[in-house]
């Protein structure tokens, strides 16, 4: 899905910083999001994901740094081609679903009514009801319907599956993948790491406002392998592992020992086997492991 041509980044953040008084919510964040990619932004609560989105879209003024879309600064006209779904649903609760869609139709030239109705049906929404009578999940679904009904080139989705049931969460992922397949760039955040892993081809991990890791998901997963060993008693402390430069970190939990090893580090395997475990296996790292390694011990 990643476009390898020399086209400018769909979204480029350079040294983005946002301070609220003494608190630095986003600290010198730089990201390059290629056109046509699905980019997942991960982080614990308060990591700065939502503030990053707000600065990105001009909803909050960055203290420092720059944001560019396809090489150009943000202009109101860009919103004709960009859809944003905020973390907290911001719809007008006194309107009906139909009225909200009409408002979208009158605001965006690219609005596709047939598409909107199709999506509303997909999420089982009764558009004649007022937004305030919708459940939280239905309100999120309504925001998704609006976001995808204008065929945007860029989608910025903050926790798009928040409040949705698993079936509708899957629909959201499929919509994102489908949009990217059609050439759109998707930037989204989620606490559901499994969903990010399924949909995103690139991720960045934020921690306390700073980027601690970013890259292509498959590459990140291939970089580190997990050697998982089980012992008869409690997993022993293996000082040799702790000083092994190829070992990213070691976890002990009861009889289980996990060593996160960069590349093919046979030295680590030998050191573990020397402690006579009952079983040893090498596992691929998943995104959750990568995330926990990036933020867990910090």
């Amino acid at each position, binding site marked *: 899905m990643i476009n390898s041509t020399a086209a400018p980044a769909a979204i480029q953040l350079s040294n983005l910083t946002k301070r609220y008084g003494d608190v630095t919510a986003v600290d010198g964040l730089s990201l390059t999001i290629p056109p046509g990619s699905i980019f997942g932004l991960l982080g614990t609560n308060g990591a700065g994901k939502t503030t990053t989105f707000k600065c990105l879209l001009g*909803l909050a003024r960055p203290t420092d740094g720059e944001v560019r879309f396809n090489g150009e600064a943000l202009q109101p006209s860009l919103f004709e081609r960009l859809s944003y779904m905020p973390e907290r649903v911001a719809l007008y609760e006194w309107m009906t679903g139909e009225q909200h869609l009409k408002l979208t139709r009158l605001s965006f030239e690219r609005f596709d009514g047939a598409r909107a109705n199709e999506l509303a049906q997909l999420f089982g929404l009764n558009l004649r009801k007022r937004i305030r009578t919708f459940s939280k999940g239905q309100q999120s679904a309504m925001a998704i319907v609006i976001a995808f009904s204008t065929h945007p080139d860029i989608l910025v989705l903050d926790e798009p599956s928040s409040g949705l049931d698993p079936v509708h969460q899957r629909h959201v992922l499929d919509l994102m993948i489908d949009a990217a397949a059609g050439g759109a760039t998707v930037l989204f955040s989620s606490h559901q790491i499994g969903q990010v892993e399924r949909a995103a081809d690139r991720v960045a991990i934020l921690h306390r406002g700073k980027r601690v890791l970013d890259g292509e998901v498959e590459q990140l997963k291939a970089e580190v392998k997990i050697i998982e060993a089980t012992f008869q008693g409690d997993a022993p402390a293996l000082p040799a592992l702790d000083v092994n430069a190829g070992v990213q970190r070691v976890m002990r939990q009861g009889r289980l020992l996990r060593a996160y090893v960069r590349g093919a580090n046979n030295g680590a395997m030998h050191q573990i086997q020397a402690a006579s475990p009952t079983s040893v296996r090498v596992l691929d790292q998943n995104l959750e492991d990568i995330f926990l390694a990036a933020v867990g011990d910090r």
Partner: protein
Amino acid sequence: MIYKEYLRISRGIIWLSIVCALFLALTGYGRLTSHSPASTIDVEIGADAGTHSAQAAHHAVKHVHHAVHPGPHQPVIPWSLLFAIAGIVATIFAGIYGASLSNENQGHLEVAWTKPRSRSRYALIDMAADYAGATCAFALTLLTAVACLAIAGLVTNLFIDRDAWLNLVRFLVLPLAWLGLVQAATASLRERSGAVSGGLWVAAVALLGLEIADLPRMWHGVVAFLNFFNPLNYSGYRTDSSGHLAASIADLQADILALVLLGVAGILVALVQWRKLEA
């Protein structure tokens, strides 16, 4: 593009229409119950009214119907009075609609600011819609008042007074000034904009009262200064014995200018705050 504003404004106008319809119905009911052919006496309020009142006393049921052709001493209704009534109603509506930017700031900025139009344009359209709504309330109230007078058979008592046109303008720009005041006071609020809007009424009326109260000189100066920014200060309505406004034309023109300036200044202050907001 102004669909949301249309929906927002029309909700208020629908409520006003219901109230106006109620007034019309009550007037019609009053007219019907006071106009029974068997017992009604038409009384012309005029120089010879006294002779008729003597006859009326002999009837068991006495209903009085004002003649449609006023005599020289018949009460007259200047158009300026109707404009004043309509202006006050429109100003109430300007207060109701006038917290529109604050309403956007109560959780909807992410929707409002991610449309392909600038923040300033968005706010100006919003405020223009507020004023259009207040003007609709003015027109509706005026029409209802005239219709009520017609039903009551008093429409011929209406007369175009000397300052009618100036007062029409004055009471049309009074809601604009009030709108500016409310927007300036609430544009950056995330909550309690309704309380602030209501509180402004209390403050404005209280300031007018304090102006004529017996205050120490310094406090009187403070009140007089604050009243410079009080739109109600420029909307006084007093008539002399002939039904003409007591104010001079120059005073009325100055009032109109002050109201327009207050309105524009308030809108500009609100706009500056709106542009500085963050979601």
